[in-house]
């Protein structure tokens, strides 16, 4: 059974475009998860299957002590005026009318962690973007916690 506690946080920019007015715009989103890939389940492939196109996480963070959950909660509050609604309900996607870019979203996530005084660690660039490709199967909780310096940027014990 999946843990209710999450250690990974991700940011996603959809590979496909949505028509918004006369423009075509990619959708920016975020989320937390307790696994990237687990047996038959794959977090990023879940997005791919439901959207009919290959998707990828352009940024990933890891927190051994579940701090990403607190970060996500704070981020949701800070994005309350910028989140995309589907049938009137808030989602973890950014509104296409918002000024928030992928770079700004990354800054906001890391600022939330700073404001909570809790470290979250970026997965090193060499492993990104994360598509759950065969060469990325080493990215899992066990490996990251055993060799954190190998996978995490600026990791401090």
């Amino acid at each position, binding site marked *: 059974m999946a843990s209710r506690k999450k250690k990974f946080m991700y940011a996603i920019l959809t590979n496909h475009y949505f028509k918004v*007015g006369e423009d075509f715009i990619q959708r920016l989103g975020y989320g937390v998860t307790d696994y990237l890939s687990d047996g038959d389940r794959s977090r990023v492939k879940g997005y791919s299957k439901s959207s009919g196109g290959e998707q990828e996480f352009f940024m990933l963070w890891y927190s051994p002590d*579940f*701090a990403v*959950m*607190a970060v996500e909660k704070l981020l949701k509050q800070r994005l*309350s005026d910028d989140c995309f*609604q589907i049938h009137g309900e808030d989602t973890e996607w950014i509104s296409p009318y918002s000024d928030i870019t992928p770079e700004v979203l990354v800054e906001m996530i890391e600022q939330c962690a700073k404001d*909570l*005084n809790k470290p979250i660690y970026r997965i090193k660039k060499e492993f990104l973007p994360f598509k759950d490709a065969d060469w990325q199967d080493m990215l899992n909780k066990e490996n990251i916690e055993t060799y954190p310096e190998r996978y995490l940027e600026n990791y401090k014990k």
Partner: protein
Amino acid sequence: MSNTIEVKNMVKGKKVPSIIVTNGKKGKKRQSWVFPFQFEFVTPTGLKAIHALKRKEGEYNSATVADRLKQLYDPKNSKWHSTLAKWQEDVKAGRKKKPDRNLRVRFAYVKVKDIVIDDDIQRDMDPAWVAEIFNPKEGGFETEFMSAIYCMYDAKTGKYISINAQHTLVLETAIADNNLWDNLDDWNGDPMELEVPVIFVNATSRNLCRKGFRVYNGSHSKDIEPYIDHKMLVLIKRVDNDKSDKVAFKADAIQTINEKEGYEPISRDNKAHKKFSWAITCIREMMDHYDRPERWRFVLRTHKRYWPNIRLDTAEVDLYGFIYDYFTELKYDVYSEEFNEQFLDPCMAIIWKFFHTPGDFKLDSAGVQKRYNSKRTGLPEEKCKTDDNGSVVYLMKLYRHFGGKHELPLYVNNLNDPQHGDLLKFVDSERTNLIEAMKEYGQP
């Protein structure tokens, strides 16, 4: 009561807690006991609060319908735009007719004898409710707030079928019958000849009447959130300068504390302000403090001291509230440096180090309590409840376990069962940092 720090050397290897010697206030050396974990204070990054309710007598805010239309048409309101698009498509395709303007309600003064209360549609009359509407106490009955009578007009019989406000209708007639109306002109004294204000539409079917009853009795109305109640009360005191409403005085006192401490309550619909750390969204919990303003002040100050960059969480209200209750009862100054250093700082260090935020701590506490209660009662965890003060008891137990020396209320001994042991036996196995720390620093 003595606030002397109890000094005890509890060195384990080279780790704290231990005795440290520091310069006291008057140049004297003093010995202090140090908790194994220190709270690391952060620099507040938030902006100053926008005080929407800080108003003077006669200072009204208003918006035009044009303002509201502009707000509605904001492209972000996807639900509105998709609803509108669906109507436009259906009308264009002939699947739906345009709403008929002639079916909007009409208004009339109608004689009581021409109104029928159909008990298939309306509820039975409750005489006590009629009396309640007519309550003569201050702030009770007010003629201006008597509702119009909602009816469906049946053209076949010429009668108006009442679908809402029968109690008001009966009361209005009874007041006339008992000669209590002032300025009641052009009336012959027969209660059935009294004319009452009616809002009506044409009845096309009984089914429509029954639906009307449900619509007018709230199934299609937006509920009033607690913020609106609080706002109205504050404005009654501040803007209307109504000195007769005692609850408004209490609301004003709480609101004054909010403003002095740099906070502002916001509506659940106020998305623009939800992002700010000064925004209070746990309004019901705040209103529960109308009779305990000093408890609320302590909640706000404690939040600001430790978590200035995040919004006040519902979890904190009970947590700090119980701390206030218990330690003021024990005659401690809960704002003193000693209290902060010996009790609050260590407790918040536990939360920050192992659970990140008070909200996450409460979630974890609920899990621990449910596992404990499940073991004790044999019920599945999801059927087990948590105690109102369970989180503060859990926190005090952890504080004591890690060697905290401040005097604690006896509640710390709650959630302990001779057969199944103490609550701390049921900490989440996934919280490995906490479990390791409990082994390393735990006091027998």
